[in-house]
């Protein structure tokens, strides 16, 4: 990896801002037109079957409610491992995504599987806690065995132009993702694009997060509307493509929130296919943060297999 992080640790906020402001702008209408054109892509038959299985493998099966319980998380984990009880060939999802206090439950339930345990940390979703508290939140999740940390950036700092603060916090979180006993937890940086000032900001925040060491950039917490619009996802895909071209490092993208149907998922995969290509068509580099999406994928999958439409009650409601 080129010395991007090293060189970016040094500059003050003014240089950071100048660098990010020098990124090419984003034309909102143009983004929208491109997304609309790609929305007409027709993914049918064999291509659809492949795409659905790929989408399943990309799902971060998520529950982020105040009412979450160990039971709820165990059920979610079971679903993640074997999404469709009647179709054992359905692959497991990429990860489950839970609050830090429920990480031990998820880790126990998923031990020995390929399914990762992601945890939102850093005082999700607002991030409005002292840095120490946010780091403690992260340390707890990592210590409990989370393999992935979904952090939120300080949107307040970003919107006031204090990019330095945002950058330093990501670096700090990344440091506490490290483990003495092995692979660090992978860091997904949530930009909460619905709270940023448009696509130019999304691109700047993407680069800032990538420079600070994000493994993934993620659109949203799911608690703010709009969440993962295809337009924002396109802008972020362009950012990771350009970042790899500039630095050689490939960063993943995770749209999260509002992706409910197979059609939504396929539209996302089309965006990946036509913007960054096959290198990102892999759960290591593209995730779909969702809760209700999985069952729709399963229903569409069954339709392709059996030729008849199925109903929601044929799939577990977890």
């Amino acid at each position: 990896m080129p010395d991007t992080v090293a060189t970016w640790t040094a500059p003050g906020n003014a240089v950071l801002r100048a660098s990010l402001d020098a990124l090419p702008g984003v034309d909102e209408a143009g983004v929208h037109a491109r997304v609309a054109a790609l929305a007409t892509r027709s993914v049918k038959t064999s291509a659809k079957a492949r795409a659905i299985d790929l989408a399943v493998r990309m799902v971060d099966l998520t529950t982020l409610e105040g009412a979450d319980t160990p039971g709820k998380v165990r059920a979610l984990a079971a679903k993640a491992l074997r999404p469709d009880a009647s179709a054992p060939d359905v692959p497991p999802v990429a990860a489950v995504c839970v609050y830090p206090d429920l990480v031990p439950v998820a880790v126990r339930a998923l031990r020995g599987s390929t399914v990762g345990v992601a945890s939102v940390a850093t005082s999700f979703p607002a991030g409005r806690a002292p840095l120490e508290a946010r780091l403690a939140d992260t340390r707890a999740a990592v210590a409990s065995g989370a393999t992935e940390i979904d952090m939120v950036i300080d949107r307040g700092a970003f919107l006031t132009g204090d990019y330095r603060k945002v950058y330093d916090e990501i670096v700090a979180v990344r440091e506490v993702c490290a483990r003495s006993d092995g692979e660090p937890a992978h860091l997904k940086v949530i930009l909460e694009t619905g709270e940023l000032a448009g696509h130019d900001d999304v691109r700047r925040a993407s680069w800032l997060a990538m420079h600070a060491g994000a493994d993934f950039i993620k659109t949203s917490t799911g608690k703010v509307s709009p969440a993962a619009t295809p337009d924002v996802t396109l802008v972020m895909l362009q950012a990771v493509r350009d970042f790899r071209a500039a630095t050689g490092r490939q960063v993943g993208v995770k749209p999260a929130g509002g992706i409910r149907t197979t059609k939504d998922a396929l539209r996302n995969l089309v965006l990946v296919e036509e913007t960054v290509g096959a290198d990102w068509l892999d759960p290591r580099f593209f995730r779909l943060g969702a809760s209700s999406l999985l069952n729709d994928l399963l229903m569409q999958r069954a339709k392709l297999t059996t030729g008849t439409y199925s109903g929601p009650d044929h799939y577990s409601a977890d």
Partner: protein
Amino acid sequence: MSDHTTAQDAVPGRLPVPKTYKLYVGGAFPRSESGRSIPVTAPDGRHLAHAALASRKDARDAVVAARAAFAPWAARTAFNRGQILYRIAEMMEGRRDHFAGAVVDALGVPRPRAEEAVDAAVDRWIHYAGWTDKVAQVLGGANPVSGPFDNASAPEPTGVVAVFAPQDAPLLGLVSVLAPVIATGNTAVVVASESAPLPAVVLAEALATSDLPSGVVNILTGRTADVAPALAAHEDVDALDLTGAGALAADLERAAATTLTRVLRPGPRPDWWALPGLGRITPFLETKTVWQSVGR
């Protein structure tokens, strides 16, 4: 003069200084490069003067001058063009007698009628001076297109217009065809009335002393048929006003087709005294439509 001259008293009195009527090209008054002229007579047959006989080369020079003047003239603010057209009216008013004399000579009309024509010509400049900053609002505007776009159309001048001035209305007709062309930012090469070119030259003198930039109006005198084909086929002429082209009009229109030069065809004989509409403005305008994406 002869009244005061006798055989015994042969010493000449003061000799009047007759005017040399020249072309008006690029703000200067050159003779024709051909060195030729044609005699101009009044309707009663009286010799009036020699007018320069413009050649094809003179026509080309005039087009070059008009082209050079076009971009800066079009780029003037509409308000400024209005002021300059108004200034032309002022200059004409100041030479009212001079113009009236030229009209009397040219048309053989009674002096009061000639003065009326001069007044109408002055008022016509003022009429078009007022149009300069209104045309865009009247002819342009916002277009409500679908999608995240601003879209607006606005008129722009076509470019260099070759104006064949009416033969039988050498001042009022001339002003009536010239003013609408330059009001919107075009520049003009005017072919003056063949039989009555002198008012056009007098107008050129008024233009030269107004604030009109050099080359915006160029005036050729002589035989229309000598210069018309060269102008009509000239690739750097963007439009023709064939009002005064007479029998040449169809051939000129055909020649204009080669470079898709815009053509205002000669219509029924116009009433130059009537208030004009937009009919002489719009043929020499292009519509430019600009789409602009809208987004945060």
